[in-house]
């Protein structure tokens, strides 16, 4: 079933599989949750580091992706002082960067670009919260449907929408608070091995359940952090990547889907996300299955975000997510090492976490993660993003050259 590099198949009609590879990555985070650099200065610092990681220069970049700004990628390129021949300002919230990789891989396979730069930086912890933005959106009145139909009822913070999914999952499948809490515990166990993580002290299920409720059934320790952070990813032609500084990490499969926007009332089924579409598509293109995955880096805005992704991506059956995570499957030594950087729950979450799963998956597949965090013999990884309120997902299957 596994198609050869550059081959075409029903699941990959344009022959995208393996044509592009991640060749450079960088992240900037701090255990304090705060960074000294902001805005463009922070973006440039991670661009410089990612290019150095790849052994490339700015002159090699002919494609740019960015999700923040009015003409996001255009403004970024102007500031960097480059004139790309390919651009992508796709903004789908937290999954934007997985989509950027998808688009970059397709562009590279089509010969439209050779080397694409993906950048994200945000410093909400140092530079104030988005409550002010939310208030200003409300004063606009009636522009976004959620302002007219959801905000009057006290919706607004993301936890409101995600908690509804958690309640529904518990009612339909008998998922328990202890099972959801186990996700926070496993993720923190990984964070304890990451000196850059915001929170590194191990926690127990009891600790999670003793933390105050934000939106029942979600406790504070089931909600992502608000930290400063930045990341950059460089995608290039696999045939050239072999001569670069680090072993290439091939983009084997990609898939994207969305079910609704910012109104959770519009989500057709609170227990099934768009990952049920994006995941199988990405696996089909890769010619791989969930059981082939050695490391999963998945969006963890909340514990329920992870639980739904595990089911929708096919790591367990729909409804079995609670039992799957309860015995530590996601943690160090577990059957599916997940969010090995400590995730959005314990490592960093500047608002759109999706660049960081790509960075960590790449490092795991290169085998360069230290401090007892490296998953031995990792050949296949999945980076999965989820943006909005369980709205827009994108799945990227990555592999070492041996898997091609």
């Amino acid at each position, binding site marked *: 079933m596994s198609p050869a590099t550059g081959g075409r198949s029903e699941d990959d009609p344009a022959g995208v599989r393996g044509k592009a590879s991640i060749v450079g990555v960088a992240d900037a985070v701090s255990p304090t949750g705060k960074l000294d650099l902001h805005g463009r200065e922070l973006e440039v610092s991670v661009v410089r580091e990612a290019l150095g990681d790849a052994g490339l220069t700015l002159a090699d970049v002919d494609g740019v992706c960015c999700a923040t700004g009015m003409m996001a990628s255009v403004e970024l390129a102007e500031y960097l002082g480059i004139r790309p021949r390919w651009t992508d300002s796709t903004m789908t919230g937290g999954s934007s960067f997985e989509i950027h990789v998808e688009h970059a891989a397709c562009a590279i396979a089509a010969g439209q670009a050779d080397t694409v730069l993906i950048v994200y930086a945000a410093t909400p912890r140092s530079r104030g919260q988005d*409550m002010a933005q*939310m*208030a200003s959106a*409300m004063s606009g*009145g*009636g522009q976004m*449907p959620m*302002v*007219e*139909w*959801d*905000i*009057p*009822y*006290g*919706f*607004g*913070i993301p*936890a*409101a929408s995600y*908690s*509804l*999914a*958690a*309640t*529904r999952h518990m*009612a339909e499948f008998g998922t328990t608070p202890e099972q959801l809490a186990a996700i926070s515990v496993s993720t923190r166990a990984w964070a304890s091995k990451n000196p850059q993580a915001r929170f590194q002290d191990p926690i127990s299920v009891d600790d999670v359940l003793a933390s*105050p*409720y*934000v*939106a*029942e*059934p*979600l406790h504070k320790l089931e909600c992502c952090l608000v930290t400063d952070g930045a990341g950059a990813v460089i995608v290039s032609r696999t045939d050239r990547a072999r001569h670069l500084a680090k072993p290439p990490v091939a983009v084997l499969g990609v898939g994207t889907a969305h079910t609704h926007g910012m*109104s*959770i*009332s519009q989500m057709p089924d*609170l227990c099934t996300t768009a990952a049920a579409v994006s995941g199988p598509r990405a696996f089909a293109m890769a010619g791989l299955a969930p059981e082939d995955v050695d490391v999963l880096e998945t969006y963890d805005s909340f514990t329920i975000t992870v639980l739904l992704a595990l089911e929708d991506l096919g790591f367990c059956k729909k409804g079995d997510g609670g039992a799957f995570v309860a015995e530590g499957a996601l943690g160090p030594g577990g059957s599916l090492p997940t969010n090995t950087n400590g995730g959005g729950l314990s490592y960093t979450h500047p608002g759109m976490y999706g660049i960081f799963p790509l960075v960590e998956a790449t490092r795991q597949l290169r085998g360069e993660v230290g401090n007892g965090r490296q998953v031995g013999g990792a050949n296949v990884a999945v980076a999965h993003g989820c943006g909005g309120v369980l709205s827009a997902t994108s799945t990227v299957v990555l592999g070492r050259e041996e898997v091609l």
Partner: protein
Amino acid sequence: MARFEPKASPLTEPFWDATRDKKLLVQWCPDCDAGVYWPRVHCPRCLGGDLGWKEASGRGSVYSFSVMHVAGNPMMADRVPYVIGLVDLDEGVRIATNIVGCEPAAVRVAMAVAVTWETMSDGRNLPLFEPA
């Protein structure tokens, strides 16, 4: 603090006007004979633009809910804990709302609920739901 009071648009004015008489309207597509929520200029099923309004029974069931211990927006700060919910109306649409009229701990998925109203500063009423 008063909760956020939504502004009506020309499209949604019939809905908000009807709330002055405590009537719950649902936008209705005559071709599909099905409801549309929230209001749009078209029916998401058939793309038809011939949408009207139908008075709903005000009855439904709780699809999901959450007790908010942190305010979802600043204007709800003095109301915590309060219950947000998604209610499936008998007319077949799902709406975001608050569940009131009982202890938060008494709310259950699939519980039968009926509309109740909270008066806003301009005389319109916001539809909320309570145990039926």
